């Protein structure tokens, strides 16, 4: 492993997390917002795996957590896509600024 320690992994996952947040706040297209969310989820996965590897190598809890997160992320992405498609059919647009029916 050399000089690569937990800190390096945490740095990457942190950076990825905030890149995902930036994308979520900035993007107007619903699908690109979904992509940003996937980035966030992945950063969390990386976090879990890193902790598992470096601090608790005798257990596999982090691995399982990551496994379940991936599964659930898949389910969630599928539902989100279904909603986006439904939204597109009703409003003819997937711009998030056009979906403001719940405003005052």
């Amino acid at each position: 492993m050399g000089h690569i320690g937990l800190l390096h992994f945490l740095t990457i996952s942190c950076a990825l997390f905030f890149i995902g947040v930036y994308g979520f706040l900035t993007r107007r297209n619903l699908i690109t917002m979904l992509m940003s969310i996937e980035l966030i989820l992945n950063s969390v996965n990386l976090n879990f795996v890193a902790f598992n590897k470096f601090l608790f190598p005798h257990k596999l809890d982090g691995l399982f957590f990551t496994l379940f997160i991936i599964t659930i992320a898949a389910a969630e992405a599928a539902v989100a896509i279904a909603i986006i498609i439904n939204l597109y059919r009703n409003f003819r647009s997937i711009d998030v600024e056009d979906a403001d029916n719940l405003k005052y």
Partner: protein
Amino acid sequence: MSLILLIPLLPLAVFVLIALAGRRHFPSLCGGLGTLALLVSFGLSAYVAYDYFFVAGKVNGAYQAIIPYKLQWLSFAPGLSIDLGLMLDPISVMMLVIVTLVSLMVHTYSLGYMKGEKRYATYYSFLALFTFSMLGLVLSANIFQMYVFWELVGVSSFLLIGFYFDKPSAVAAAKKAFIVTRFADLGFLIGILVLSWYSGSLDFPTLIHRLSTPGTELHNITAASFLGISALTWGLALVFIGGAGKSAMFPLHIWLPDAMEGPTPVSALIHAATMVVAGVFLVARLFPVYSVSDQAMGIVTWVGAFSSFFAAIIACTQTDIKRVLAYSTMSQIGYMMFSLGVSRYGGEHGLGYMASMFHLFTHAMFKALLFLGAGAVIHYVHSNEMGDMGGLRKHMPVTHITFLVACLAIAGIPPFAGFFSKEEILKAAYHASMPVYIMAVLTAAITAFYMFRLYFNIFWNKEFHGHGHDAHHGEAPASMKLPLLILGLCALFAGFVPFGNFVTSDGHPLAMEFDPLFSVTPVLLALAGILVARSLYYRQSQRPDRIAMSVKGLYQAAYHRFFIDEIYLFITKKVIFNLIGRPAAWIDRNIVDGAVNMAATVTGKISMAIKGAQSGKLQQYAAWFFAAMVGSVLVFIYLWK
């Protein structure tokens, strides 16, 4: 003893029954129902009177106040409580008989007078309510209970004056009556508080005893003074203001003439015989306390004397027959008032008290008779004005004779009832105060004059050319003639009741002496008045108008009732409305409503300001979410210890 409770409760039961069920289910029976109940009540009252005066009442030769029932109602402090109770003493028993008798006559009369009226059942329910209230008032054992019934009587009067509520003048008259008496009742309430504060009790026997016999309470109340007048006088004067309002004494008399807008039987019952004497009754009830304070008695005397003279003058110029009778009522009540005022408590001094009560008794009879007769005339002629009447003696014989009897009674001609009671009053005034006596005698002369002016204008003067009430109908139905006859008999014979044996200031019998020498002056003056009236009004002539022209200013002033109504209107409009009403309305609209509106506006503005949080923009929510998350992290790591 439980029979006494039935006397007021029967009319109450009739009121509730008619109001709840009678109006819808058996409207035509309500009249008979009310009359029947009153008949029973009258019978019970007569029995109670017999029992009290002849069998059971006397203790040590004096009639005592008996309290058959008492129950505690509101308890403020261990010693201070408002109780509900019935009290029987000479004047309340006398009033029981009067009220039930006159009410019975009015109920019977209304069977004919109000026949065919759309709100017949409602009318009888109001009459029953009034009778109940008046009976409760006279039977009250407790000054606060009397106040409650006082107000109830005012309400019933309001309902009955405004009975024809689609006439704006009737509505205005009802409001006026209620407001003026209510305003007077403010004084009454303050007076009650003053008197009960010093005496420590609200019950009549206790209150009267403590404030009339020397002791700590009497000492305290006479020692305390405000603006140089003792608290006792203040209390009594305030109570008298309440009485003056209800009894239409000057200057609170303005409601009585207008109250004639109500149906005539109502005027007979309320505004002639029973409610308007409530003020006199109140002073009589508190008489031992009143006689302690000469100043209060002075007020009572002069207000009464002035009112009677004032009303007599106005009555000479009025053309509406009911208004004439209203002013005559005011005048006679003035007699009762000043008779009380010149009297003092105990033995010989109590002559005025006895005379006042006697006059109350006889006045009820002949005044009710006058009003019912006037009602019959109005029923026949369909107009209240004297100008539309004349020569009715041929068309309405029964009414004519009974009306004549009543006029002779009120003028004080022997042997009719009014003579005896007026004599006693004049005697009391003569022995107490000469100016009052002179005023009283002059008023008696003027009374005779205007009453006979009324009589001649209705039954003689000119011939009746109007269409009249249909020939087949005749004068009036039997239900209207019967009360006239009964009351006529009473007006004839009521004077012979030895009143002094029954009702006196201290309960001991007081002999009534008949002094021919003394009576000559008033009777001669009354006869003179009658003759003057006859000369002016027996036949149609120009003489009345010429006399009116010659005293034009005085005549105009009297005709316009001395502009008292206009003065009141001016005061209310210019002074009260402008100085008090307008600012109060401004405060209410701008400050009170403004505060509420401001709360609403502020809420609206806040809502407009924060509605941006509900923008529907997903990324805005996410941004806030993220910011809050970072903030929480900072808080939990750095600030949470």
